[in-house]
């Protein structure tokens, strides 16, 4: 497999604005709909903000980070933080991984439809409320690699698994699989991605790690 050649030179690319998201668009919002955002999105006072700027876009990013922080901080956001009372749902998982950049194309996995909202499954269902900190929650993400012989399916899957394991609480178990029939070597790819020891060793491989870092760079700002 020649990794140097693009496996799919002309993928279908969706515009970012077509993708489902709960993220705030980075365009500054005006008018009455943001009147309460200071209240709704206020961060805990004990969070330091040494690099806070008045720049609105920067503020949005900071706010998103603060929201994510309080949500993933195992309820540390405090009783008066209503956001922490919501369970992590499929949309939230989607927003965490759809911005991962494809290693072959300068576009996101969401835009390439490698990751699709209906292919994200969470058990027990987030509709049942916030699971207790020790309840094992299974997050399954089905990938649809861009072509059937995509040699990078493993790398894509690894990126998704690593991203989710970095930000989800420790009771979340992440499973990344290729969508049935989408990839000619599903079983091998799936088995490799579910092997904790192989994933751990892969992350200590410098060249692979740098590919992953590049893919995940685009997630940090979101």
């Amino acid at each position, binding site marked *: 497999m020649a990794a140097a050649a693009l496996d799919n030179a002309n993928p279908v690319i969706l515009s970012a604005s077509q993708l489902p998201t709960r993220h705030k668009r980075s365009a500054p919002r005006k008018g009455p709909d943001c009147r309460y955002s200071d209240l709704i999105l206020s961060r805990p006072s004990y969070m330091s903000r040494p690099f806070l700027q008045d720049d609105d876009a920067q503020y949005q990013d900071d706010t998103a980070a603060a929201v994510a922080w309080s949500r993933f901080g195992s309820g540390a956001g405090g009783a008066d933080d209503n956001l922490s009372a919501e369970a992590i749902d499929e949309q939230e998982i989607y927003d965490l991984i759809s911005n991962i950049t494809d290693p072959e194309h300068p576009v996101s996995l969401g835009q390439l439809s490698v990751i699709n909202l209906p292919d994200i499954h969470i058990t027990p269902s987030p509709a049942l409320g916030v699971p207790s*900190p*020790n309840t094992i929650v299974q997050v399954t993400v089905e990938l649809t690699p861009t072509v059937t012989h995509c040699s990078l399916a493993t790398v894509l899957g690894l990126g998704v698994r690593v991203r989710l394991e970095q930000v989800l*609480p*420790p009771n979340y*178990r992440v499973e990344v699989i290729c969508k049935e029939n989408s990839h000619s070597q599903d079983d091998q790819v799936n088995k490799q991605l579910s092997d*904790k*020891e*192989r994933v751990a*060793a892969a992350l*200590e491989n410098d060249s692979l790690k740098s590919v992953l870092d590049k893919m995940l760079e685009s997630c940090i700002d979101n």
Partner: protein
Amino acid sequence: MASTQIVQLQSLKPDLHERAWVSIPHPSLPLIATAHGKNVTVFSLSTLSFHSALTDGHARSIRSVAWKPALPPHELCLISGSFDSSAGVWRWNKSSGEDDGDGLGQDMSRGPAGDETAKAGEWDYNLVLEGHDSEVKCCAFNPSGNYLATCSRDKSIWIWEDIASSESEDDWETIAVLNEHEGDVKAVAWCPDVPGRNSVGQRYYSVDVLASASYDNTARIWREDSDGEWVCVAVLQGHEGTVWGVEWEPKPRDNRFPRLMTFSADETIRVWTLEQGEDNADGDGSAMSQGLGGIPSTMRRSFREQWNCTAVLPKVHDKDVYSATWSAESGLIASTGSDGVIALYKEDEAAPSDPPAVSADKDSDGNASLSHNSSAAGGPQWQLLTTVPSAHGPYEINHITWCRRYDAGSTKRGEEEMLVTTGDDGLVQSWRIDVTSS
């Protein structure tokens, strides 16, 4: 009815604050070595706290450790198997000028005070064993301590012999490279030196028996034939996922050949039994008539051993079973894995003396496999005693082992057993088994 409980004791200090893979107790001294990150931390089982650390030896994570057995009382030798494709040989260097003379050897009898002297020394990184092409996943010594087996993602198992004339120098030689697995070799384990080990196959093989577990869903049994060739004598098929590990029965009853336990990503734990002839002399001849299908021609005149899956333990885990341990003291099995549950199982009294209840189905290769209805034939041989959910909170548990208690809280120091679990949370946690009759 007696009821059994697993009671949490204290965790070993300090917390390691990063994923810890495995904790291996020393065969005779009150020490346990934990692999985490690129380091190994050795804890004293007397004080349940830090004893010493092995650092700066490997470029990548250390996945496994093995204590060299059968050493003189004052010597310690530890092997580290690393993701950097090498294994390291470490020796404890007692600092000179200490007049106690025998700190470590006396540690057990002198109690906590002995640990003070134990700290008067350091670990020397003596030798790198190089040869594997990719991550070393496991390493293990045979009972007499002259053979070391290492296994790797490169699908091979290497057997090394310690040929140094004294323990103070290190000279190791590769005596075999075993290449038959079709995937990563996840674990290796040597058959313990129990009377039953010599009951089978002596005519054709030397005493040492090695078992391996693999990503190819099989476990294999390896022996050294009369030509000094290491050969695969059995392929254990039945698991439907990666076999994470193998463990030998530490104390077989009736001097039978030790059974083998395998545990897997398919969420099950299986027990395998060697088919022994009527006269108990050598059952391995019986496999000859089945032809040697699937066996490479290098096996020539070698004899196959017939291993049958004789039990599947009650299903508890709903994710990968990463580790299971079989007690020499009580015969109990404990298991754990990705679901963070500790489970404890007991074998029915009557079962071991019965002949293998499950007749093996032969697949086209003549290998033993287990059909789905066959586990029912033997009835429930193992019963689940108890479980502990969320034993490391929400974290995965990578390893569990029986080990002897030496701490102040134990009633019979050096005899009473406890469980030690090692998790992704960097905790090495000890547990007591309480049996109360009601």
